């Protein structure tokens, strides 16, 4: 969802590359309704790219299969990658300028410096 297009001269700034130094797995109850609502809002390629970055690509398909709403197995995997894998420390990297946005305590810092806006 996040981009770096706030930076001067950056056109798209998406997807940001995740560099994970510390990843935490948390247990969260599966909510099928929410996940299937969320999927169409996401950019699938970006999601797969993000999953790869944090080393949780596992066996997620490269393209979003038809009828995903009823594929509980897939939704569970998505649930895991979307909600249960949390990057505690690391950074997000802009694909165009390689500007890095730090993540600390699980909170990304997307602030730009005054000379970048």
């Amino acid at each position: 969802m996040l981009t770096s297009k706030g930076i001067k001269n950056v056109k798209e700034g998406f997807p940001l590359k995740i560099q994970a130094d510390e990843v935490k797995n948390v247990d969260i109850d599966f909510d099928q309704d929410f996940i299937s609502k969320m999927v169409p809002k996401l950019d699938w390629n970006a999601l797969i790219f993000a999953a790869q970055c944090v080393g949780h690509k596992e066996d997620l398909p490269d393209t979003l299969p038809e009828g995903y709403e009823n594929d509980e197995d897939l939704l569970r995997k998505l649930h895991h990658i979307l909600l249960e894998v949390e990057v505690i420390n690391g950074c997000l990297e802009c694909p165009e300028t390689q500007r890095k946005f730090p993540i600390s305590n699980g909170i990304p810092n997307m602030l730009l410096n005054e000379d970048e806006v």
Partner: protein
Amino acid sequence: MSCSHKCIEAARKYLLWCANEHVEFRIPELKSIASMFNIPIKWIDKPKEDPYVIVEMRCEADAKKLMSRSLLVRSCYELWGEGSTEAELHSNVRSFPAEFMKPHLAPEKTFKVRVEAFNKTLKIADKLAKIEALEYLPFEGHVDLKNADTCLHFIEYYGLDPNSIPTTPYKIFVGRWVAEGQRELIGRFSLKKRHYIGSTSMDAQLAFIMTNLAQVQSGEVVADPFVGTGSILVSAAYWGGHVWGWDIDFLTLHARTKPTRHSQKQRLSCESIASNLEQYGLERHYLDVTVMDNAKPVWRDVPFIDAIITDPPYGIRESTERVGSLKVSRPSSYNQDNTTTTTTTTPHTPYSPSNHYPSKVSYSLSHVFCDLLNFAAIHLIIGGRLVFWLPVFREDYHDGMIPSHPCLELMYNCEQVLTVHSSRRLITLRKIRHPTGEETAIGQVADLTAKFRERFFQASLMTKDERQAIKSQFPRDKRGQGLGYRLEEAKNQTKMVRMDVAAKCEDSVIPVCETTRQKEEINKLNNVKTVSVAMCETSVMTGCEISTLGNNDNNEKAITTNVTTECVTRDESACCRHESSATRNDTLTSLSCTGNQVLHNPDKNPEGELNARVDL
């Protein structure tokens, strides 16, 4: 609808006993909940200030659904009868269809009757008499005071004013208890027990009302762009929303600000927005929080948010800031330097904020709101709602100050009074379509609201007497909650006395008090200090004389016959001020204007109004 089989029965009347606070929010909240659950509601009487609202709903299931979300309704009853007198009430209850009554009074149902009064304490003997009077009802079951199946309530309403309680009630209702509202959440989610709070954490009740106005439902994405300590997220998560918050303040999000709780010296390590959700077992609804600048959104332009609920900083307790610099020129190598420092820091303190803390410049309120609306227009789904607070200076407020966007439709606008001078308005907007091209928010709010901070502090410099005088003009109820519409009315009666005197005001005596009521109102002003006559958009007035006539101890006499001390001439209006020596008990009865140099400009406004304004 699931309850359609029950709805064959005719619609029934339900009595909603509302909480006697946040009166302006009551109806918008009910309407929002009803539309969220698709519950058709017919309003039987025009909702008033008193805490009883009578509505018609299809069935009890609908009533229970409505109550499962409402914070401002105390309890809901199926109305069996109402009246202004006991005789009227009992005749109404008698005519309530027996087939509706019977199932609840059947032999296998235990029952109890409760007598309750609003604004009066009843004696036990009186209560018993009132219960006895209901003996004509076909009770067949046994009495059970603890776990009755059927609870009948006999409710008497003695008005809102605790200082003038009538001997007989204004209204009496008899109803069968159906459900309680959600007021217990106020205590359960109280900020007193919240792990992590700050100086502007949102009160639990208001946070829940906001989420109701935003129609947060299970499985939705809810965002708060000025998240602070996450108090709004907690309420949104309670209704099942998945919450995402962001804020520009790194220290707030990392809970490293100075503690605001009395007697707390240091922030505990467990304090965070996530821990607030964990406290109530809502951590599964936590998506993320992010440090971000609302003036420079970093979102992909897709509509993915179902509701945006937020309380932007007003610049009073929390400053309004965005990233930027006032310096025009800066070394161009700086950017690269900074990037390299970020990447080459040691692993155990990888990206500490001390590397660089971007400088911030002030972010005017009008920009705050315009950016918020633009963000909502792009990222809300269609039908999604934006709910936010708009701080206003009460005297200056008019509806045009609400920021607007062509893609967002105004749903509700409710006032919460903060001080005699200031209030905040909860604005609810709904997205009706996606923006096309360059459609952006219009913030006419700008100029006046931008001065909010300035005016706020200016007001606090008033003397005690001046403040007292204004207080009498803006009555507040005991809890300090706004009774906005009542105040509006009072404002119109006292502030501007409009007179139908046009061009010829030479030597004319302008009656200030035309009716006794106005007389009383002006009397209430007590310390009249300045009287100003304003010729609004009509004329230019130079060197005119004004005198006020007063009524001292009921003897009509001139309390002042003063001349102009100051003349202010502006483009479109001119006003003439003078100090009068009215004292506390004087009644201002008339005001005369001997403006022999008053020039009327008929081109600008042929009807020309002369307004006398009593300034405090």
